[in-house]
């Protein structure tokens, strides 16, 4: 018996490892399998603490996927016995964050208002939340400024807030819509943070050469075939690939500046 009732221990192990390794389909299946267990943990948080059920679910999903990335099956601990700690911790952190009486400076409040306005405008125009890059473009803040504000400036909520909001009071069952939304939002964040990282460091042509050469997303091609497709010689395609790999290597091993070069 595993935390996900429909899986054998072996299936669960494979699913967790695949999800932890970045397989998005496996992430999706893992969340589907464990959503009832996450929902059950979410229901243990009392109503009226100023945190929406959907927010708890979202954090729970993030906690589950974090656990999958950290879980080592060789240690012998059943996955849910391990993951439930991180799911609960993620929810507890959210509750602490949202109920903490944090007073923001006037400047921070104004900055947050600008971010909120940009986000709402983007939502109105495009129907989806903006990415960090889109927010930086719209507000003029740097990514660093945005992250700082977001780290410390979630809207404070009182622990003595209303007992139920948005018609969720007393509801023990989690709606599929909530669950789906929770998962999609967490998945988007993961994709943005991890999946695109390496590829983002490459130019379009470099990406094309590497993907084609190694059969990523299509049949593998020789450098000669790739060169022909791009109107280049095979040697030029090889040079582009070598430069791309060198660029990735450099980015992954970039040293901190030496002491004598600091300002």
């Amino acid at each position, binding site marked *: 018996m595993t935390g996900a009732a429909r899986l054998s221990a072996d299936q669960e*192990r*494979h*699913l*967790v*490892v*695949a999800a*932890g*390794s*970045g*397989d*998005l389909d496996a992430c999706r299946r893992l969340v589907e399998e464990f959503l009832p267990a996450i929902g059950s943990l979410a229901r243990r948080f009392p109503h009226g603490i100023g945190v929406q059920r959907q927010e708890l679910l979202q954090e729970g999903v*993030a906690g589950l996927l*974090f656990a999958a990335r*950290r879980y*080592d*099956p060789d*240690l*012998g*601990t059943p996955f849910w016995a*391990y993951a439930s*700690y991180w799911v609960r911790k*993620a929810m507890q*952190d*959210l509750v*602490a*964050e949202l109920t*903490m009486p*944090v007073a923001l*400076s006037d400047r921070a409040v104004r900055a947050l208002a600008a971010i909120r306005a940009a986000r709402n405008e983007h939502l109105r125009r495009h129907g989806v939340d903006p990415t960090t890059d889109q927010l930086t473009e719209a507000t003029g803040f740097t990514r660093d400024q945005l*992250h*700082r504000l977001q*780290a*410390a*400036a*979630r809207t404070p909520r009182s622990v003595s807030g209303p007992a139920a909001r948005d018609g969720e009071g007393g509801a023990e069952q989690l709606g599929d819509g909530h669950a789906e939304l929770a998962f999609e939002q967490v998945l988007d964040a993961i994709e943005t943070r*991890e*999946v*695109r990282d*390496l*590829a983002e460091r490459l130019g379009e042509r470099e990406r094309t050469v*590497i*993907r084609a*050469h*190694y*059969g*990523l997303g299509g049949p*593998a091609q020789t450098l000669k075939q790739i060169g022909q497709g791009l109107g280049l010689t095979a040697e030029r395609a*090889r040079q582009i690939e070598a430069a791309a*790999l060198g660029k*990735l*290597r450099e980015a*992954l*091993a970039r*040293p*901190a*500046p*030496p*002491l004598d070069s*600091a*300002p």
Partner: protein
Amino acid sequence: MRSGTTALRHTALVYDSREEYVARAVAFLREGLRSGEGAVVAHTRPGLALMHEALGPDAAAVTFVDVSAAYTRPAHTLAAYHDVYAEQLRAAPSLRAVADVQFGPDPGEWDLWTGYESVFNESFAHLPAWVLCTYDGRVLPEPIRDAVWRTHPVVLDDEWTRSDRYEQPGRLLRRTAAPAGPLPGLRPIGFGRDAEEFRERLARELVAAGVPEHRTLDMLLAATEVAANAVRHGGGVRDVRVGRVAGRFACEIVDAGPGFDDPVAGYLAPRPGIGSGLWIARRLTWQVGFFRAPEGFTAQILL
């Protein structure tokens, strides 16, 4: 203990209340800020909010790092901190950081994270950084409490106290890290003429095994680094074996050299004079291990 930091100071604090954490962490950071040092706070989001509030106007000069998802594997966590510290050190001559340590509930992985704290001493030894690792004493298991003194040369108790239990990282890692061994069921694919053919062969296996695209690239880069080491220092690649083992894609690279015995290899942050191949391989994969076998010294990479 004053900063004037020219190399790493890796210190620790075990706090018994939220108030104690905030008071000591804020005093520590403000002293550095007054001296023109950079400042970093790493914590969960509630911890960051708390520190942001307590620092007041000084918060504007501090970089806040959400660690909620950072502690997945020691090499990944080291890389994440290195990126943050390197960024800070482009703007300041030295820095101070307060990092709340996230231990999980499973005693089976405590050795792994104790090893991380230990290797931190050598990984960032060259950086002008004074790092204060903080531990919530209210929930700290006894083995971790002991490990704090074994992995930090100096601990902030009633005052800064030099640890008489501190262990050299190499010794601690050798004692706690599980040795790798050959994996069953892997298939030999050979190295080919050169690194390019090696990557082509490996990529075919990764794609056939259904490894996601971005992870395939991770493995190609990691294995290229390990193979380059084998060619450069190990007398050439004798064989390459690949396959899926318990859900993970595995690649073993056997070389012709005598091998090495260095438990911190690949954990040292990039710097002049230090090879960065294993650092790259570790940060892109789940695990890189080494063992001696009858057919040769073997590097084992698990994705």
